[in-house]
């Protein structure tokens, strides 16, 4: 099961090398992401949180892993990974051409192919967020979906959005209760 986490550092070789933007770090000290634990290796305790390597495209040997530091503990990440999904398929409304003014198309993908969810530069905040997933080894896709960032864990855990949480912190509390 995916987990909501405060990421304090994200270093990778891609052009988006500072995903935890300095402005987020300066104002909050972290940035919210929803990560899939099936991409994590070398998970270690770091202070009161953890550090690990994360693979955006785990089927492609050419791509190096990112280095992340998180406020989530190792135990929380392990517990999240051991929590079962509602189904191994998940359905989201995909906006064609990532245009939030167009009608979303319900599209189903394998939960194993999901890398992470992000709320950055969300053009229709807070009604949608970015889903980053892989079309197997062939292609990495960044897709705008019609689910709020806080509603994503509910969809993967129960199949529907029933959350009334309005902030990532509240959603994290709700998700932790499920775990």
């Amino acid at each position, binding site marked *: 099961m995916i987990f909501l986490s405060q990421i304090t550092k994200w270093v990778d070789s891609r052009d988006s090398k500072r995903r935890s933007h300095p402005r987020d770090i300066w104002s909050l000290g972290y940035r919210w992401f929803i990560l899939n634990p099936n991409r994590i290796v070398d998970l270690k305790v770091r202070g009161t949180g953890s550090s690990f390597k994360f693979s955006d495209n785990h089927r492609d040997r050419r791509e190096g892993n990112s280095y992340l530091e998180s406020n989530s503990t190792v135990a929380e990440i392990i517990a999240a990974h051991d929590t079962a999904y509602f189904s191994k*398929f998940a359905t989201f409304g995909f906006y064609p051409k990532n245009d939030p003014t167009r009608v979303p198309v319900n599209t*189903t993908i394998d939960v194993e192919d999901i890398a992470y969810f992000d709320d950055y530069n969300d053009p229709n905040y807070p009604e949608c967020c970015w889903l980053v997933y892989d*079309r197997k080894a062939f292609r990495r896709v960044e897709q705008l979906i019609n689910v709020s960032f806080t509603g994503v864990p509910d969809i993967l855990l129960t199949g529907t959005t029933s959350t009334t949480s309005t902030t990532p912190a509240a959603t994290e509390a709700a998700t932790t209760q499920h775990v």
Partner: protein
Amino acid sequence: MGLFLTSITDWTSKRPEKYQKLLYLNYILLNTNRLCDIRETTDGHTEFLFHQAPDDRRCSPDHITCGTSLAVLRGWHDAAEQSKFGTFSIFPAYDITATPVETTIEWENVALIYQTRNDFTNGVCHMIYYQESFKRRNVIIDENSLLHVLAEEYV
């Protein structure tokens, strides 16, 4: 996760093989672990991208439209096999007069299984599977029906 039986409405691929023209009665077994971007069509069918080689970045996915609904696809994907391994009687060197060799393969490495009209007459099936990401294998197995393969996986 595993194989599901479906009838093919449309199959567009950059690969040279044109399976849709080969299928006996238009039925085939596909593996749900190869599916991506599944969408329901207006007539209750589904269209999706099918990755024959999911671990090979060079292999583009096929586009398939089939007669199975999304709910049924989800059911097959969530179903548990009785074992992670399946045992198949594979004819050596593509020769159905030779003695088949019992070979055990992980279900997740099987891409698809189908029957041509000749296969149906001879009581065999064609199977495409992958030796992990290394090699694609096209073999003939000693199974007289696709339903029999499904029964071996789930029952």
